[in-house]
């Protein structure tokens, strides 16, 4: 479905991604992990077209898409949930979700319920700083779920959400794993999410290695979470 060949990315003279080769198959659940600054988000952004690699090729169903714009890739079936949700002054949640669902009528607003938000309370609110970080994050995730992409990329969905939301998020991903027709790529440091993976991708210093699932324990530094969901 998606194939990366020899992808390299440099920023301000620093090597961010170094000769990455990767194949993502249909209907699989991938988790990408690794230390901060290792290149995970950059690789996801290269796939979405937000960043452009200096070297290498990207194939989507065997078609080279390296020169395609972000919106073209979205139309082809790639969805991207940002680590830092984007705020919009004046744009209502309802409108953002309409755009995500390509203006199809929002049926029962199930997707908001899926991420633990009551549609009646939220649809008319603006996607701005009147919402908490956790609420914005859930709306960000909902906007990608509504697109029903063939490849859904979630960049650290657990970042900035509280413990209750995190447990809710795990349920969302379990449900996706069971019922979702597309491929899922989640960037995460969380063991609970890694446990769901069909395959774990470790990115370190811009290099990629595939880790066997039974070796997660060696990989994960167990973290305690405080009441606000921040890791300590």
């Amino acid at each position: 479905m998606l194939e990366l060949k020899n992808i390299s990315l440099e920023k301000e003279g620093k090597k961010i991604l170094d000769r990455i080769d990767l194949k993502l198959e249909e209907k699989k659940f991938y988790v990408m992990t690794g230390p901060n600054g290792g290149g995970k988000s950059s690789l996801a952004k290269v796939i979405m077209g937000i960043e452009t690699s200096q070297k290498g090729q990207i194939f989507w169903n065997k078609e080279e898409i390296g020169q395609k714009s972000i919106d073209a890739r979205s139309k082809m079936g790639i969805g991207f949930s940002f680590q830092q949700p984007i705020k919009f002054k004046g744009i209502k949640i309802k409108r953002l979700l309409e755009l995500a669902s390509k203006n199809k009528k929002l049926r029962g607003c199930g997707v908001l319920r899926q991420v633990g938000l009551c549609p009646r309370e939220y649809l008319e609110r603006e996607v701005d700083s009147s919402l908490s970080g956790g609420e914005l994050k859930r709306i960000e995730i909902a906007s990608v779920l509504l697109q029903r992409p063939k490849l859904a990329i979630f960049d650290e969905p657990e970042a900035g959400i509280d413990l209750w939301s995190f447990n809710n998020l795990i349920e969302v991903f379990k449900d996706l794993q069971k019922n979702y027709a597309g491929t899922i790529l989640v960037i995460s440091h969380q063991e609970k999410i890694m446990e769901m993976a069909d395959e774990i991708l470790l990115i370190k210093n811009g290099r990629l290695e595939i880790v066997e699932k039974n070796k997660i324990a060696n990989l994960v530094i167990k973290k305690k979470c405080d009441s606000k969901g921040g890791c300590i």
Partner: protein
Amino acid sequence: MNNLENKLLKKVNDSPMTGAVNIRKNGKMWQRKNTKYVTISDRKDRGGIEIRVKDDTPFALIDIPVLITQSGLTDTVRNDFYIGKNAKVLIYAGCGINNCFEKDSFHSGEHYFYVGENSSVKYIEKHYGEGKGRGKRVINPVTQIFLEKGAKMEIETTQIEGIDDTNRVTRAILKEKTNLIVKEKIMTSGSQKAMTEFIVKLKGRESSCRVISRAVATEKSEQKFVSNIKGNEKCFAHIACDSIIKDKGRVSAIPKIKANHVEAELVHEATIGKIAGEQLVKLMSLGLDQKKAEEEIIQGFLN
């Protein structure tokens, strides 16, 4: 009213027009209707009207649109609103100019609001211009507001399209326990110019004022936002001016706040910048091309 005038009217007036009405067309009164609670009459000393709303009016709807289709017309008018005590009023005002010829068309409207104790007024004003002529469409509104004890007023002004030059001045004097909210939306393009100025004196204890200005300046257009807020008592004012600039658009925001009382809390916030790249990227990741994403962001911002 012909098709052109009807079209202009619809652009500047969303109201069902079921209450008191005064339509001014090319500098003259065209249609007038009074109601049980509202009396509209000509001002005696100079052009314009007096609108009187009775005490204890449960709800009054008033429409006072102005239409100009005559190129080269200079229309100056002063309208005085006398709102009685304990009244609730919704006013739709607006000015539509169609100028298809060479000469400039001007409308200068002065609106004076004397709002009685404990009354509540909502004032919705839209300005719109159209026409392929080289003559400019110029609107210079002046709004003077006097709020008596416990009165509230909310103003929504919109100027999205077609006005070449505008100089809007809003002055307000707020007495005890009054509240003024102003929401302003302006979009300019081409070489249009828009200046808005707010001069508010919070004279009464526990008076409050909130001004929310959203502006978009595109192409070579230019906007200037000036606020001058004075707090003489325990009071609160929050002025927020957010602007998006595109192309070679220019915006300046000039705040002046003066607290003459230790319990006066006055805040001014202004942000000016281009459309945030991350907003564009997010909407493009939902499948919108860059142009549509920009339009969506601007439309949302001005809504």
